[in-house]
């Protein structure tokens, strides 16, 4: 389990301070798929970077409950998929090297490592592309390489920062279903940040709705839609519509409050 407790983050530079996270708390249970959704401009990336141990919070903690370990630097239990594949893959290495790079410190045996890479590529439908360079692949395929890299790392938690934001709609739907499939087979717990309400509801067991900056958790909504999900059937269910309305209402309220707050500071 992963616990986020009273997380705060304020950036200070040159005497000015910017409060990004005010008070964020939620838990992620083992095997769960949690999505964090909020209006654009909410401190979602900051939140994820704190959770992944890439950014020290100003206050509050992120704890891996199983080991009781407080996250202060990137833990081996967490793997990340970043938003922009063109910036998170290494164009100077072939796909297989990109996927295998983090394994050099984990799997000592070379053959075993190669197998792990092949298996990861296969699980995202990229077998046979190990010898290509990332820039020879389409955007969707590149993001699948990034997913394969995270899976090959065999994490307990997969943290994804708007992973499908820079691909077209059809590819996006395919990748959503891919991630649902692989998290089943890999038995990994997923935290995914998005600003897309449909995506948040479609993927999640629970949706954490956050406000605009300074970010607080507005509500955590249980998604009681049956699994396996399907782009056609699930999204056609009346319950899906109810849930997305519920989330959308919260986010609209958040945006309105943010706009009002901004208006006040301007006056």
């Amino acid at each position, binding site marked *: 389990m992963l616990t986020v407790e009273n997380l705060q983050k304020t950036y200070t530079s040159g005497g000015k301070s910017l409060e990004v996270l005010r008070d964020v708390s939620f838990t992620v249970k083992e095997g769960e798929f949690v999505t964090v959704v909020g209006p654009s401009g909410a401190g979602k990336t900051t939140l994820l970077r704190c959770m992944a141990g*890439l950014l020290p919070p100003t206050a509050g903690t992120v704890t891996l409950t199983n080991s009781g370990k407080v996250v202060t630097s*990137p833990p081996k239990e967490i793997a990340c998929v970043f938003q922009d594949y063109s910036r998170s893959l290494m164009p100077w*290495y072939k796909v297989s090297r990109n996927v295998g790079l983090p394994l050099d*410190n984990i799997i000592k045996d070379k053959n075993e490592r190669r197998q792990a890479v092949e298996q990861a590529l296969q699980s995202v439908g990229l077998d046979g592309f190990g010898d290509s360079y990332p*820039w020879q692949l389409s955007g969707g395929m590149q993001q699948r390489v990034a997913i394969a890299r995270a899976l090959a790392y065999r994490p307990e938690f997969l943290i994804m920062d708007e992973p499908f934001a820079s691909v077209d709609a059809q590819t996006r739907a395919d990748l959503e279903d891919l991630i649902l499939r692989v998290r089943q087979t890999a038995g990994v717990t997923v935290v995914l940040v998005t600003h897309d309400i449909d995506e948040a509801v479609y993927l999640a067991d629970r949706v954490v709705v956050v406000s605009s900056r300074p970010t607080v958790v507005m509500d955590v909504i249980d998604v009681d839609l049956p699994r396996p999900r399907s782009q056609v059937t699930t999204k056609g269910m009346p319950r899906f519509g109810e849930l997305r309305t519920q989330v959308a209402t919260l986010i609209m309220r958040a945006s309105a409050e943010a706009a009002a707050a901004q208006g006040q500071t301007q006056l």
Partner: protein
Amino acid sequence: MTTESIITAATRRRRSASVNGALISLILPVVILVAWWFASANSVSPFFPPLQRILQTFVDAWLSTRVASDILPSLARLVIGFAIAVVAGVGLGALLGRLRIIAVALNPILQFFRALPATALIPVAVVLFGIGDVPKIALIAFVSSFPILLNTIDGVRNIDPVIEDVGRSFRLTKLQRLHWIQLHAASPQVISGMRVALSLAFVVMVSSEMLGATNGMGYVTLLAQQGFQIPLMWSGLLLLGLLGLFVNGIFVLVERKLLRWYTQNQED
């Protein structure tokens, strides 16, 4: 299959364009050579001998014993000096790029040495190291290390924070991050520094041989002028120009290979 045929068509088009380009860029040199040949054919001026005589001297004087006695020693000094500059410049640059404060503190000194004309240092090198190979190699290395150093500092400093996050989140060690991520990510800038450094190294190679030297292409060329062997002097210039082109050509080939990922990325 369609993408494949598009790729091959594009490659073919690019290849034929580059063949056309090569042909077009050959026109002017050929025209100049032909014009020079005929214009100077009956020349009696001691300063502008016929091209035929210059070429004859070129073959007789340079392409025989002087290969071993002058051309190879010159090139060896160039290669060794440049190699030292690359190792020192990249190594120190990668370090300073990480230690922002030290880089800022050192910046005025670095800029001073970079701005110092390379040839002004030749007497200093002779005083410090005497004559022979050492002062020339030291000078080539010193002068050409600055563009590499400054570009490496810049390149390492401007690495995309996302790829740094990737390295940290997968718990790569500092050394792995340097080796697998930072040096590669900075390489476009490092290599453009190396390109500037190479032409500097070539200048220093020739000019250092014109003062306190006993062999080398620069030495022979200057001696020819002083001994009134004008065809030898001209042929020395021809040789230096051709070698400069050759060295640069090799560099471009290496650059293309190393930066294929970068140029491909830019095209998309």
